[in-house]
Every structure is written in C-alpha cells, then in structure tokens.
C-alpha cells in the first residue's frame, strides 16, 4: 500500500509520521530535537523504518513532506516533495482529522498560533511575534525549576483549590511572580494553576486578539498534553476543546497529507529512501565577506557534496 512520510522539525521536538492512503496514521514518533536536528532526523528515520517493518505490511513511501523551523534542512536530507510552513501544515492536519474544525489553537515549543478555518479553508491566522511567553519551552523550564516531570505538571494544576494570579505577559516577570507567590506560602498546585491561566490569558490577548473563536475548536501541539492549560482554555473560551489523538505530531501529519496531495497531482516522489539514515551528513557555516551584511551562510553536506545552502540575503550562494 502507498503511504506518505511527514517530518516536522521543531525547536523542541522532531516528529515523524507515516500516513497511509486511507488517511490512517501507522507510525507516529515524537522525539526531542535536543538542539541536534540532523542527528534527530536520522534517528527518527531509523526508528520509523523499524516500526514499519514490525507492522509487516507492504508499505511503499510514495511521497514526503517536511515542515517546522527545520523544514529546509529535513527537506534536503530526505528529498522532500513538499516543504511547507507549519501554519499551513497544522491547518491541513486538523481539517483531515477533525472535519468541520473552525478554530485551531496550537502551542508548540517556541511559537504559538491560532488558525481560523471557515468552510474548510484558512481565512485568518496569527502567530506570536516578539515574545515566547506562553509557549512550551517556558513550561518546560518551570517544570524543571520546580522539579516536577513535565507530564505531571498539568495534572497538578487541576488539584488547585484557590486562585492565585500570576502575571503572564512576560516569562521573566511570570517567573518572579511565581517565586514571590511560592515564598508567600501558596501551594504548588495553586501556583501552577495560576501559571496555566496566565498563559492562556496571554495567548488569547496576544495571539487570539480580534479573532472569532468558533467551535469546533481543536487544541494541538505539544502543550495540548497539559491538562491544566486545556482546562484553562475551556474555562476562558466557554466551549469544549477537542484534543486530536495525534495532537503532538499534527505538523507532521499535515506535511504527510500535503505530500499526498502533491503526489496525487501526478508527480513522482523525490524521496531518497530510509537509507539516508545511514549516510553522513554534516553542516558547516561561514560568514560571507562580499558586503557588510556579513550573511551567516550555512551549508549542508551529504558525504562530501553540498546539497543545501541558506542564510544568504542575495542570490550569490543559491544552489
């Protein structure tokens, strides 16, 4: 059977899915990028291949799509048919898995976005611009500081009995506020709940500003695993929130679906095969000296051949 590979290389996680022709997800991987996207992509491909073999189904990868902030890197390594931004990928995935969806709330590692869909097409979107307050990284950081595993962080918020207000505008101020409240003697559950409410408030005021949030509402991205944030959203929006089964790999699902659409138009895949996981890839960078812009140009090597180059503002270094 034909299937499509979707790869989402984000700041915090690298996700890989394999989506069949029947729109079934048969492989879904959520790996930490840990600041090493190249190695993580290779490791992910290896794992995906092993899982695929375990399934013992006759699967042929007919197309590949990449998305996320590392989409160009992943794209040149695997030979992607589609390289798409994460906003489009997330919208496509939600429409595929939750037909009729009208609003998508997405909170990832470094960014958060809202996507408005009407009659199946994206009509409006917004993405956090200057500030990372209210994204996964900050929650990660606070969980680490409080020594609570991130998986339990949200559930703890649900045990809160009293409201504690935390400033959510800026992570630096939020943290000092949390420390202040903790030293005053508030319970941890209350403080974490306060943080969840603050993040949601900040998200709705900043990213969701001026947008009409209509149901069905889907909440996806890594932070959707957090029960406290989920509860805060339901309470502040006043509508039930749907968390799709593959909420943390939706970008990859969307990339796979986009590849599927592309291949259905009659193109042949550029996929280089799972063997790329065993090949040598490295990156190097240099500062261009042709003008004072001093662009930091990055090169990607496959064995000894340059397969990708970016970072330049003028076309001088285009491949």
């Amino acid at each position, binding site marked *: 059977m034909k299937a499509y590979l979707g790869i989402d290389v984000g700041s915090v996680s690298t996700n890989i899915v394999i989506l069949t022709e029947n729109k079934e997800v048969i492989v879904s991987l959520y790996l930490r990028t840990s600041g090493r996207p190249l190695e993580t992509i290779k490791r992910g491909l290896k794992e995906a291949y092993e899982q695929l073999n375990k399934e013992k189904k006759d699967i042929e990868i007919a197309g590949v799509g990449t998305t996320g*902030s590392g989409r160009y890197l992943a794209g040149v390594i695997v030979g992607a048919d589609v390289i*798409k*931004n*994460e*906003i*489009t990928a997330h919208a496509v995935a939600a429409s595929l898995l939750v037909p009729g969806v009208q609003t998508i709330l997405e909170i990832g590692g470094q960014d958060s976005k809202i996507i408005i869909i009407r*009659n199946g*097409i*994206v*009509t*409006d*979107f917004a*993405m956090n*611009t200057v500030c990372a307050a209210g994204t996964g990284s900050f929650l990660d950081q606070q969980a680490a500081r409080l020594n609570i595993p991130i998986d339990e962080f949200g559930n703890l918020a649900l045990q809160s009995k009293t409201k504690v207000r935390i400033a959510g505008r800026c992570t630096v101020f939020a943290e000092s506020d949390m420390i202040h409240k903790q030293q005053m003697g508030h319970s941890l559950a209350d403080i974490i709940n306060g943080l969840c409410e603050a993040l949601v408030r900040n998200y709705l005021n900043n990213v969701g500003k*001026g947008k009409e949030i209509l149901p069905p509402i889907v909440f996806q991205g890594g932070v959707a695993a957090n029960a406290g944030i989920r509860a805060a959203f339901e309470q502040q929006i006043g509508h039930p929130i749907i968390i799709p089964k593959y909420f943390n790999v939706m970008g990859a699902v969307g990339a796979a679906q986009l590849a599927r659409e592309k291949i259905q138009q009659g193109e042949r895949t550029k996929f280089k095969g799972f063997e790329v996981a065993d090949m040598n890839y490295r990156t190097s960078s240099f500062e261009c000296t042709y*003008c*004072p*812009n*001093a662009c930091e140009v990055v090169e990607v090597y496959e064995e000894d051949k340059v397969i990708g180059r970016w970072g330049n*503002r003028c*076309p001088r270094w*285009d491949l």
Partner: protein
Amino acid sequence: MKKVSFPHMGHAGIAFKSLLEDLGNEVIMPPVPTKKTLDLGVKYAPEFACLPYKIVLGTYLELIEMGAEVLLAFDSYGPCRFGHYSHLQFLTLKNLGHDVEVICFGYPKREPIEFIRKLKKVSKHKSTIKCLYEFYKAFKKGWEKLKALDYMEKLSHKIRPRELKRGTTTKVYKQAQQWLDEAKTYSQIAEAKEAGIKAFNDISIDPEREVLKVGLTGEIYVLLEPASNLEIEETLGHMGVEVERSMFLTGWTQDNLGSGTQDHASAIEAAKPYLPYKIGGHGRETIGHVVNYAKRKFDGVIQIAPFTCTPEIVARTILNKVSKEHDIPVLTFFFDEQTAKAGITTRLEAFIDLLRRKRLEKNQVAAAI
C-alpha cells in the same frame, strides 16, 4: 565644493545625486544599508527610536567615514516623530565629535525664504535668481530620472512573479538602475529608460502562471527601502505574487510639494468611514489604500511599518474591521532590528497559501454558478 551626501532610501538616491551634481556638488553615494549600518545606528540611537531612525543615523556615520562633509536631511514638518529625527541625529553626530555641516530642508511651500537660504549652501550660484533657476533645471531633470526609476520598479513588480529563471528580474532591475544613474542628459535618460524597458521585456516569462495580486502599504521608509523590509517585494515576487505598492517617491512628492495625486485623494476618501482625521504619518492613507485594494479585487494586503510606529499601530487596529467588512485578508509586519528572515518567510508563506486557497474556492464557486 564640499562633498555632499544624504540618507539611503531605495533608488531615490540616484535622482538626488543627479540633482545635487547639476547644482555643482561632489556627491558621495550613500551605501545600501547593511548589518553594519544597523549596528552603528543601534549603538548611538535612543533605544525607543524606530528602525528608519537607526538606519539613517548608521548611514550618516558610514558616510562620514567615507569622507562626506555636508549631510542633507528633510524634516518635512514633522508628519510624525520623523519631524525631529534629523535634528536629534545631527546632535548625536556633534556629540560624537564629528565636524560635519548639516543642512535640514523643510517644506519649501511653508518656509520659502529659509529654503532658498539652505539651497544656496549646496549650489555654486550665489545670486538668488540664478540659484533658483539652476535648481529648477536640476530638479526637472532629477524628476525625469525619478519617474523612470519608479517605472522600472513597477515593471519589476509585474515581471518578477512570472519570470522563468528565478533572479533574472532582480538582475535586470539593478542593471536598469545603473543605466539611469549613468545617464546625464535628457536624451540619455530617455535612452536608458528605453533600454531598461527592453531588458525587462526580454525576460522570459510564463504568461499562464497563476499570479496573486497583493497590495503593499504602510510607513514610507520601510516601504521604499528594501534593506529595511528584508526585501519583502523580492521575496513575494519569488513566491509568485505581483505586488502593487501604495507609495512611490514620485507620488509622495506630488502629494506633498505639488498639487496632489488622484490616488492619494481617493485613499483619504476611502478611509473616511473608518478614520476621518489625520493622525500623523500615513496611518489614514494606509487604511484608505486597503479599502481601495479590496474594491479593486486584490487577493490580499500586507501592511509594513517600523516597530513602535504610532500611526501604523492605530491603522493596524482599524484594519481588523476593514478586513472583515471588505472581505480582504490583511497581514501586518512590524520591522525592528531582526535580520533573520525565517519568521517573516513562514508567515508570508502561510499568508500566500491562504490567499491561494481562497482564490481557488472563489473560482470554484464562480464555476458552479
């Protein structure tokens, strides 16, 4: 004569240079703003000043390094904070110990005597009549160049999204600018313009390509200086988008020094239901242009402005309503010191996807009817 220079703003420098040379000056061409320019500007500018301020200050410092002795500016009677920018910049230069002469021109209509007094400083003619006559002649010729330059830029907007080989248009556009820069007489300007048009027409294009039409509006400096907006027009062109920009220096000059353009008047009129007052800068015009683009059935509009630009912030808030009422998607970018293109590319790509799907749906509906 002393070596004269001025800030960089898109291709306008080519026309300024022609004008100043005709008045008998030795002109130093301002360099295209780069990361170095910005670094210099950021270092010596107040933290809260906007991006154009920082770029211009950085350019002045680079020009001094290049040997400029006279720096020119225009304060245009303070449409926004811009009105006091040059005065502050010159104070900064003085405090840094740079011994440069600075001449700041205001509106000639508003302060004609002062204008002539300043004009004489950059003219080799000392009699008022002769000075004005020479200025008139030089201005007319510079104007001819500016018109040709704007025309070339408009051609690049049309052809870039349709070019077969990516980057050809940008190359041709640069070449055309150089030809116009080298042209000294009226006939040479006309010849350069003809050659430019021909070069543009010779670019191989795909006339069948489905090209989106997007209006670009907002604050004047980030609109006119590609280095300040991370070359947004070029990026859009490469994504298959034809850009129509709301502002060109020729239009601005007519609106502010001449009798005004129809385009400007209709933008003010169109903005009336949303904002009947002048709020400084081009906030009111931005709103009007979006309404007009919507009426002309554009696929979408992109508003660009420097971070902290008050008139554009006001306009942005009102644009939510305009966007809804006129069913036109609007995307806003505020530019600051960031030089990484990634965030902007992601949003642009998503916006263009949105416009494409919207157009596809419209076409399907039209076909069904």
